[in-house]
C-alpha cells in the first residue's frame, strides 16, 4: 500500500503556499469537460461542490437526505475556530496549530494541521460574506468566545446553531449553482459502491432511495465527504442516517482506512434513559463555560436530589483535578473523569443497567453571578432542548450529563492533497483522518470541513484533473461499471432474500452494545479480543437471520438500514482490531493497561504513526500498515491540563 504523504518540503509556514504555487491548473475553457462527483452535502461536500462549479467544472452531488440542507453538519452547536486574533489575546496561526496538534495528542499530520490553521481566517471571511449571522458586538464587529479547552477566544458562533448557519451558507452557495445548472443534485441517493478503472476512481454506483433504481455514474474524479462512523456504537449524537457505507465500500475497493479506533466521546450529552432510546443528544460544550461539573463526595448521596446535597459534600472533580483548565478540560479528559466517578458509584440520575450514569452540570453559581436573563440569552435554546427531552428545567436544578460518542477522528487515509491511496479518490471533512489526530478540539470540525471544501480540494483536485485527459472518462457501459453494478444488485437481493427472524435494528443495537462496552471510553486487550470474536459471530448471525421487510423497487427504510448495519459490522471488527494493536493510550483511545495514575500514557517511540488498514477479503481480518508521523517543528510533550 502506497502511503506517501506527499508533504511538501520547507518550513511549515511556507509549505502550503509553496505547494499551491506548484500545483497544476486547468484552463478555464477546458474545465467544463471534466465531471466531478461529490458524495455528501455537509459542510465539506456542499462547499466543495459549490466551489468546483464556480470554477467551471461539471459537478454532480449526491446525498441520502431529501435536501442537501439536512446533512448532519447542521447539528453542530458551539462554534468554529479561526486564528483572527480579533480579541487581541495572543492568538495566531502558529498558536491555533499548536493547540490543535497538542489537542490531537500528537497523532495528526503536522503539515495538514498547519494548513488548517492557515486557511481558518479565510473561512470566516467567506461565511460572513454569504450572510451567516454570526454573533456581533454592539459596534457591529464579530464576537468571539473561548471554547473547548482553548486559552484564547477564537471561536465564532451563531447562537447555539453555528453548524446550521454555516451549512445553510454552504447550501446556499450550492443551491445557487444548482439553479444555474452547473451542479446536478441527486437527493435521496445513496452511494453503494466505488468504481475503479485502471486503478483510478472513475465513478460510483448509487441506489435511488425512492424508486430503488441502482444506477452507475462515470466521472473524472470522485470526492467523498460522507462524514464519520459514530453510529457503529448504535447510540451516538449522530443523525440516524449517518453511516460508514460510502467510505467502507471505498475501503473494500482498496482505499486504506486510517486510525478507526480514534473516536471522540463528548462529555456533555443527556444521559441514557432506557432500552428504546434511538439517539443521544448533545448539549453544546459551551455550557461548560458557565456550568460547574460535580457529583456527591459520598456514594450515599447519589440517590438524593441535588438540592439535598450540601455544598461541602459536593466534589467539583474537574476543578479539583485540573485547576488551570477546570470545567473546560478537553473532551477526552473530561469524559474519562466523568466515567471514573460514575464507576466509583458516585454517579447521579436514573439507574440504567444497575448503574447511575450521570454527573451534574450546575448553573446556580452562574445564575447568581450573571442573572437568569443573561444565562437565558447565552444558552436559552439549549436549556429548552434539555427541558423538552427530560422534562426538567435547568434554571431550577442542575442538568445531568454523561459522555456519548460524538465524532470520529479516524477515516479514509489521505495524503497532503486529501487524495486517498486510490488515485482520483479524494476525501474531505470528517470522512478523512488527517487533521485531528487522536482527539478533536471543540469548534474544529466545522473549521476542517469548510477548509477542505472551500480552500484545499479546489486546488488539489484541479491538480489531479490537469493530469487526466479531458473527455477520457469511461462510459458507464464499460465492464468495470457493469461488474460493480452487479455486485450492488446482488447484495440488495441477498439482504432481501434471507428472510430470517431478527430486524436490522436488533443487530445494530447488539453491535452498539459490544462496541460501546469494549471499545468505548476505556479499552483493554481481553475485552477487545472478545469483542472481535463476538462481532464475527454477530456478523455470521446477521447474514443468516436478518429479516428485511419492504421491496427493492420502492422506498425501503429497512433495506437501507440493513445495508448500513452490514457494513458497520465489518467496520466494527476493524475498529476493535485497530484499538487492540495500538498498545498505548492517546487522546480518545484509552487502553487501561497504558496509563499513569489515570492519565493517558503515550508511546511515541513505537506508535507515532497512523495505522492504515487494508481490506484483504470477505471474512478476513484486514492488514495493518503504517504511515510514520514526522514532526519537523513540534516538540512532542505530555499533554497536561493540570
Amino acid at each position, binding site marked *: 500500500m502506497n502511503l506517501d504523504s506527499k508533504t511538501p518540503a520547507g518550513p511549515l509556514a511556507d509549505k502550503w503556499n509553496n505547494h499551491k504555487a506548484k500545483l497544476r491548473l486547468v484552463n478555464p475553457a477546458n474545465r467544463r469537460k471534466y465531471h466531478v462527483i461529490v458524495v455528501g452535502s455537509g459542510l465539506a461536500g456542499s462547499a466543495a461542490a*459549490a*466551489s468546483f462549479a*464556480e470554477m467551471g467544472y461539471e459537478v454532480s452531488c449526491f446525498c441520502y*437526505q*431529501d*435536501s442537501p*440542507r*439536512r446533512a448532519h453538519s447542521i*447539528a453542530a452547536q458551539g462554534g468554529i475556530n479561526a486564528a*483572527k486574533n480579533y480579541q487581541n489575546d495572543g492568538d495566531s496561526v502558529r498558536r491555533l496549530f499548536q493547540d490543535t496538534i497538542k489537542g490531537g495528542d500528537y497523532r495528526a499530520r503536522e503539515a495538514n494541521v498547519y494548513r488548517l490553521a492557515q486557511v481558518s481566517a479565510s473561512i*470566516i*471571511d*467567506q461565511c*460572513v*460574506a*454569504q*450572510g451567516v*449571522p454570526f454573533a*456581533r458586538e*454592539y459596534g*457591529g464587529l*464579530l464576537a468571539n468566545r473561548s471554547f473547548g479547552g482553548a486559552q484564547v477566544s477564537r471561536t465564532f458562533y*451563531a447562537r447555539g446553531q453555528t453548524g*446550521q*448557519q454555516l451549512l*445553510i451558507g454552504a447550501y*446556499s*452557495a450550492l*443551491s*445557487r449553482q*444548482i*439553479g444555474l445548472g452547473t451542479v446536478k*443534485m441527486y*437527493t435521496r441517493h445513496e452511494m453503494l459502491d466505488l468504481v475503479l478503472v485502471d486503478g483510478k476512481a472513475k465513478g460510483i454506483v448509487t441506489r435511488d432511495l*425512492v424508486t430503488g433504481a441502482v444506477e452507475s455514474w462515470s466521472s473524472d474524479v470522485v470526492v467523498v465527504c460522507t462524514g464519520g462512523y459514530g453510529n457503529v456504537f448504535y447510540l451516538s449524537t449522530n*443523525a*440516524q442516517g449517518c453511516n460508514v457505507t460510502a467510505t467502507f465500500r471505498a475501503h473494500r475497493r482498496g482505499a486504506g482506512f486510517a486510525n478507526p479506533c480514534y473516536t471522540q466521546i463528548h462529555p456533555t450529552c443527556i444521559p441514557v*434513559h*432506557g432500552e*428504546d*432510546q*434511538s*439517539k443521544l*443528544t448533545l448539549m453544546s460544550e459551551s455550557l461548560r463555560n458557565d456550568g460547574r461539573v460535580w457529583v456527591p463526595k459520598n456514594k450515599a448521596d447519589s440517590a438524593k436530589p441535588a438540592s439535598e446535597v450540601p455544598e461541602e459534600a459536593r466534589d467539583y472533580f474537574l476543578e479539583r483535578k485540573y485547576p488551570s483548565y477546570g470545567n473546560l478540560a478537553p473532551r477526552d479528559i473530561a469524559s474519562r473523569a466523568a466515567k471514573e466517578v460514575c464507576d466509583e458509584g458516585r454517579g447521579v440520575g436514573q*439507574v440504567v443497567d444497575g448503574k447511575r450514569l450521570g454527573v451534574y452540570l450546575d448553573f446556580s453559581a452562574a445564575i447568581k453571578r450573571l442573572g437568569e436573563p443573561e444565562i437565558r440569552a447565552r444558552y436559552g435554546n439549549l436549556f429548552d*432542548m434539555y427541558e*423538552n*427531552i427530560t*422534562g426538567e428545567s435547568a434554571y431550577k436544578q442542575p442538568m445531568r450529563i454523561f459522555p456519548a460518542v460524538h465524532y470520529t477522528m479516524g477515516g479514509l487515509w489521505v495524503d497532503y492533497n486529501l487524495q486517498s491511496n486510490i488515485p482520483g479518490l479524494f476525501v474531505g471533512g470528517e470522512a478523512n483522518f488527517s487533521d485531528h489526530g487522536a482527539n478533536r478540539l471543540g469548534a474544529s470540525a466545522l473549521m476542517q470541513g469548510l477548509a477542505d471544501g*472551500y*480552500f484545499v480540494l479546489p486546488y488539489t483536485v484541479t491538480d489531479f484533473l490537469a493530469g487526466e485527459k479531458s473527455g477520457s472518462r469511461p462510459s458507464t457501459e464499460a465492464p468495470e461499471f457493469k461488474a460493480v453494478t452487479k455486485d450492488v444488485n446482488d447484495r440488495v437481493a441477498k439482504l432481501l432474500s434471507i428472510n430470517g427472524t431478527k*430486524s436490522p*435494528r436488533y443487530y445494530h443495537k447488539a453491535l452498539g452494545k459490544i462496541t460501546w462496552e469494549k471499545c468505548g471510553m476505556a479499552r483493554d486487550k481481553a475485552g477487545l479480543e472478545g469483542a472481535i470474536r463476538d462481532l464475527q459471530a454477530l456478523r455470521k448471525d446477521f447474514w443468516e437471520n436478518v*429479516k428485511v*421487510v*419492504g421491496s427493492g423497487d*420502492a*422506498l425501503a*427504510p*429497512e433495506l437501507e438500514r440493513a445495508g448500513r448495519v452490514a457494513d458497520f459490522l465489518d467496520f466494527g471488527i476493524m475498529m476493535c482490531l485497530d484499538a487492540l494493536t495500538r498498545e498505548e493510550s492517546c487522546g480518545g483511545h484509552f487502553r487501561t493497561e497504558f496509563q499513569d495514575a489515570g492519565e493517558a500514557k503515550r508511546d511515541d517511540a513505537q506508535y507515532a504513526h497512523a495505522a492504515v488498514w487494508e481490506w484483504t477479503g470477505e471474512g478476513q481480518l484486514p492488514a495493518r500498515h503504517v504511515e510514520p508521523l514526522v514532526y519537523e517543528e513540534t516538540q512532542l510533550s505530555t499533554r497536561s491540563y493540570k
Partner: protein
Amino acid sequence: MVQDNGKEETLALKLRVWRQRRGQPGAFEEHALAAVPTSASFLEMMDMLNEQLIKAGKDTFAFDHDCREGICGMCSMTINGMPHGPLPGVTTCQLHMRNFRDGETITVEPWRARAFPVLKDMIVDRSGFDKVIQSGGFITVRTGSAPEANNIPVPKPIADEAMDAAECIGCGACVASCKNGSAMLFVGAKINHLNILPQGQAERDRRTLAMVKTMDEAGFGNCTNYGECQAHCPKSITLDVIAKLNRDYLRARVKEFFSSTGKPSKGGD
C-alpha cells in the same frame, strides 16, 4: 418519567397511521402498541411500532427523520391533525410521549399539501423548497472573493433579527398547517434573513422577485393571514416575516415599474 416505585411509566396506545404507495391512494391502518415509555420520543414510539410490524412479517411505516435533535428539518408528521404534534415550538423528534395519555388514540399522517406529494406513507417530496432557494435564496459570493470579515460591520440588532429568521429549518410545517398550502412563512424567513443584512443589499430586489415567482410556480398557495403557520412553526418564526416579504416584494415591483431602462425585466434584474 420514573414513578415513586422506581419503574418507568408506560402507555398503551391505539395508532391510526397513514399507509400509501407513491401514485396510489392511501388509507389509515389501525395498530395497538403497548408499553411505550413516557420518556421515549414520538419517533422512538414509531420505531417500536415498526419493530412490532417486522416481527409480524409486515412492511414498516416509512417516515422521514434524521438528526432527532430538532435541527435538520427532516421529520414531518401530522399528529392528531397538527404538524409536529400538539406541543408548540418543537419538531416531531423532540415531542415526547409524556405529552400523551394512556389509552389515547393517536392519528399519524403525512404533511398534507398540494406542493408536497406523498412518496410513501409519511414521506413527502419537499423539493419545492429547494427550488425556491435555488432561484434566489443566497448571497452571491464566489469562494475566495470575500473581503475581510470585519470590513462589513453589522449592527447587533440587525444581526440578531437576521439570526431569528435564519433559524428556519425548512421542514414545511408552515405549508402543511396552512389551508392554502402557502410557503410564505418559509420564503419570508429567508428574505428576512438575507434582505436586512448589509451583505444582502446588492441582490435584494432580484432575490425577492425571483423567490416569489418560483414559490408560485412550485404550487404553493398565497397567504390569507390565518396564522396557522406561526402556531405550528417548530422554530417559532413569526408572521411579521410575511409582512416584510410583502413589503420587499412591493418595493421591488415598484422599483421595477419605475426603472429608467424602459426594458422589460428579466426575473428581477
